């Protein structure tokens, strides 16, 4: 009995700390999640800065970025969040500061095709229909 009591004494400071701290549960998804400032979330692009050099596509380890080139200045940069490893290599590889990882994350979905997004669209706009 004496031994058991001595064992418990070593835990008392921790018990006191936990009681004082109160509950740590976050009410997600009913409340916004607590994300750190530098959290690596979804990839976003400043389209004005993008030159279509495809350095991000070349270095992406998860093949989540795709560049569809139709001409020298005409291209489409497509992002597949379902493949993305959120490693931030694209941000590091971009020489123009166009691509970065934002502080938001992709919500779950039952259809992965709906996740795919076109980040930059520089294709020539289709000619107006003849009236």
């Amino acid at each position, binding site marked *: 009995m004496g*031994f*058991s009591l*001595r*064992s418990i004494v*070593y*835990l008392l*400071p*921790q018990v006191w*700390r*936990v009681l004082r701290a109160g509950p*740590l549960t976050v009410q997600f998804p009913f409340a916004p999640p607590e994300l*750190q*400032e*530098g*959290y*690596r979330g979804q990839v976003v692009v400043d389209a004005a800065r993008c030159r279509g050099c495809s350095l991000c596509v070349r*270095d*992406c*380890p*998860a093949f989540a970025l795709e560049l569809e080139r139709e001409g020298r200045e005409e291209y489409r940069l497509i992002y597949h969040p379902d493949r993305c*490893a*959120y*490693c*931030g*290599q694209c941000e*590091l*590889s971009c020489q123009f500061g166009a691509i970065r*990882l934002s502080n938001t994350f992709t919500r779950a979905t039952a259809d992965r095709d709906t996740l795919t997004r076109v980040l930059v669209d520089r294709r020539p706009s289709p000619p107006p229909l003849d009236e």
Partner: protein
Amino acid sequence: MTKIIVPIGPQHPLLKEPVSFQLTVEGEHVTESAMRLGYVHRGIERLCQERTYVQNIHLLERICGICSHVHTTTFCQGVEALLGVKLPSRALYLRALLCELERIHSHLLWLGVLALNIGFDTIFMYAWHDREVVLDIMEDLSGGRVSHAVNIVGGVRFDLTDDRRVTLLRQLNGLEEQVRILLGVVEHEQTLQARTRNVGRLSLEQIRRYCVVGPVARASGLDVDLRRDMPRPPYDGLTFQVPVRQEGDVWARTLVRMLETVESVHLCRQMLDLLPPGPVSTRVSRRVPAGEVVSRTEAPRGEVVYYIRSDGSDKPARVKVRTPTLTNLITLPSQLENVNMADVSVVLSGVDLCIACADR
């Protein structure tokens, strides 16, 4: 007496990762054991040959979910040796800082797993609560809780402001207090000792024969630690103790790991105090000169060895990874011999298996 074969795994509440054990039990005692690996083999070494050095850093980070930073550190260290680049001191300090934080996180996680397996849920909760502090620090520094993605060939990707450094020191002080409470529990708690003392004992001779590394070796009296025995900067300028015990049982391993955690907190504090100014990375070529290199680092579970061969292109010709779990796994059949069935969970936990590392 009738022999019964008890299968444990590949899916079993006792195991956190898939591995299979077949235990031959006579009465209450295990007489024989067989092990089967390979359930989480992902062919990472082969995949490395298909990808560039830049992409490989992120691939190798996914070998393990606990010591991910150590894997990229060892890989980058090797590639930097092939390139012949000298890293800025600040980069080396920041790299080592994350290595030590990872060691704290790994050992606290392991203590939680051991406590859960022996039915001591209070310690499981408290250890994982304290581990959360380290995870928060690492997320704040790197942007990711598990995959930090901070290493690049030629340095690191993050820097520490002076304000952040002061906050970090304060957080580490709080963490040390909590770790010391857990250390007190390991040293004095009667139920924990009753379950772990004289269980899974390995002699020094066995440790040498099986080439065991890390805390398992140090708990059996083998005084080996790469950070001290082959010091690289910044470890050559830091002072720390390497805890060694002679008992060789699961309790000694628990104690060694908890003492190491305290030492790691001290190391983090020293590194923050001595953090030199300057850049955190240097520009390097994407193509690596032909040659081969062996890179070694002291991971939380022991020594990680990387062999990298380059043919002069931007993709490695061969990457071979030897993780500490692979050597420590071999000791399990002799540890499980004549063990009471109820102690199997303690023996399996004691080694700190990382099957994802072993299978790659």
